[in-house]
């Protein structure tokens, strides 16, 4: 059942989406299977002899084999239809579809959507399938168990979540029945060693968007934060021009608000952080009203235009570089702290107040020639990794560099630091 290029593009997308859902379901089943195998081993290790573990193992092994076979087939189908490789890029605009620039909920679609959809869940699953196949060939039960222990502790929960989120967002009518299943499974595994949840007593009350903003206002009083519904932000961005910021502010304040009262809190999808005279950061929240940031971009405070959104890029090199760096920081904040991502991101952005004044902590200069682009740039890197000083139950050790919010590095200098 290969999808041929002559099929209508929306059908191809739907078929690919279906396959990816199946892949996700299979992955979840495989994890449950691995759990059962471990349980069987545990029982077998008990002093009381019993035949039960043997039966369980035999049964589980055959169903696991079947599942992996299915996953392999699915992976092959996805590969053939071009979802997992870059063959689509050679054909213009992915199956001839002209992606809508603005989705039903007002979100702007970026080119990377299909990579995000397909790559994270599908590709990593196929990759792990391949590795399992090799282990399987060795007929070594011990190796298989070790493999399970190591591989399934990788937090692919995040990949699955991102995948289902994206699917729900861009194709809301395709139905999302696997998601409830997955979240059920992932919740079951959350308590085990693979989760990296860090509890901080002092930050535990930052649960809603209002909390985050109120707290940030206290910590960084000279930074202006406003929230917008998505379409309102597009209007504001288009009317921001290179004329004096003070002139445009009063007219457009009606659109944004520093989250007072209960003005459509559940529809807030864009957070704008303005450090006067330094930069303007645009953060997109998904789903609207949550505290889950999914993209951030930096611009000059004087810039304006419809390209100014959380996935756009500034025309100036300095902000472009910060945006690229911020993507990594965002991933880090999302992966280490549950529900703290937005707060940490905003706080980290505030550390850029000194963008044009703070000297690089390594070479002690402000401007430095960036070797790859031969541009003179100020230190655009601010460190974002930090240590948690409370107990964690993580198997993977967290980074132990302490965050010093007052350090800054040039791109070149930070490469040496890392």
């Amino acid at each position, binding site marked *: 059942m290969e999808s041929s290029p002559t099929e209508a593009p929306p059908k191809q997308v739907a078929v690919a989406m279906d396959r990816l859902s199946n892949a996700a379901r299979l992955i979840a089943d495989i994890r449950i299977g691995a759990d059962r195998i471990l349980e069987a081993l545990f029982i077998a290790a008990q002093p009381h002899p019993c035949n039960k573990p043997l039966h369980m193992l035999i049964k589980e092994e055959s169903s696991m084999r079947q599942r992996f076979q299915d996953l392999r087939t699915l992976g092959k189908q996805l590969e053939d239809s071009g979802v997992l490789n870059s063959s689509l890029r050679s054909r213009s605009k992915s199956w001839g579809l002209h992606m809508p620039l603005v989705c039903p909920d007002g979100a702007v679609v970026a080119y990377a959507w299909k990579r995000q959809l397909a790559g994270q869940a599908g590709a990593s699953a196929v990759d792990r399938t391949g590795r399992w196949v090799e282990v399987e060939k060795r007929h070594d039960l011990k190796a298989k168990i070790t493999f399970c222990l190591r591989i399934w502790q990788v937090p692919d929960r995040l990949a699955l979540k991102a995948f289902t989120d994206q699917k729900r967002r861009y194709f809301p009518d395709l139905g999302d029945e696997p998601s409830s299943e997955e979240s059920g499974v992932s919740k079951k595994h959350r308590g085990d060693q693979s989760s990296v949840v860090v509890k901080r007593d002092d930050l535990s009350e930052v649960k809603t968007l209002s909390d985050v903003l109120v707290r940030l206002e206290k910590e960084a009083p000279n930074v202006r934060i406003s929230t917008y519904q998505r379409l309102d932000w597009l209007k504001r961005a288009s009317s921001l021009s290179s004329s004096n910021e003070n002139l445009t502010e009063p007219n457009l304040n009606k659109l944004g608000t520093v989250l007072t009262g209960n003005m459509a809190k559940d529809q807030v999808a864009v957070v704008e952080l303005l450090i006067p005279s330094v930069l303007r950061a645009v953060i997109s929240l998904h789903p609207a009203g949550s505290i889950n940031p999914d993209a951030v971009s930096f611009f000059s405070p004087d810039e304006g235009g419809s390209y100014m959104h959380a996935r756009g890029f500034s025309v100036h090199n300095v902000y472009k570089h910060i945006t690229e760096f911020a993507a990594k920081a965002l991933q880090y904040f999302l992966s280490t702290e549950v529900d703290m991502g937005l707060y940490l991101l905003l706080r980290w952005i505030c550390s850029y107040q000194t963008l044009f004044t703070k000297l690089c902590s390594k070479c002690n200069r402000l401007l430095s020639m960036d070797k790859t682009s031969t*541009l003179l740039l100020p230190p655009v890197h601010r460190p974002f990794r930090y240590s948690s000083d409370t107990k964690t139950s993580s198997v993977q050790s967290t980074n132990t560099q302490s965050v010093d919010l007052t350090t800054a590095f040039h791109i070149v200098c930070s490469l040496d630091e890392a």
Partner: protein
Amino acid sequence: MTIKWLLHWQPNAGTTVNTQIHTEITQCVESINGVKGGRWKATFSYYRPIQRDQTMALPFECSRDLMGISLQEQPNKLYFVIRSQRIVLEADSMIQMIMDKLQSYRARGSVTFEGYQYQFGDFQLRVGKVIPNSQDNLRGIVLEVEYLPISSLDKSRQIMEEFLDVWQETVSKRSLPGHFMHIDPNFVEYGLSDHYTSQHTAIQYVVVMGQLLVAAKN
């Protein structure tokens, strides 16, 4: 508006500026991989009040040092500066016609700044020759350094100073008889704010002209 610093070439004592130096400086810009853009031009004019009756003295409030600057980035505007009283004014370019009709002031001489502009990352550099309109010889060399991302004078000061250091280092390798100088006019005295505007640029041109005149006299 983006930040601009206007630098002028200060020749060493006893030497004068010439086209050779201008060529060397242009090569300097090109050597740091500045991407050549289009031409740029600014015009500077002296205005003198028109006296109908030559025997009477000029009224007290008539200014003798009115200077007008027209900038390429604002083609419809004309900027007036009275340096002695720290006044800067942005006017529509129609004001020329009005002044002619009123017979109040007339342009008595003008100087052109012109050259090519270069893009260098977030910076834009404009190397210019200073040529009086009545003559054809080179009277000076200016360099306009523009930093595009921000428009706060305060925030950009360090960046501009460091750029200047980098630039001076590059130029000094050529062992030219002179160096670039930057004079920081006190914009506050003119009533201007931290946010950079074309009025700031106009004042910088006036200041530089003043320096070039002083240098020419010596």
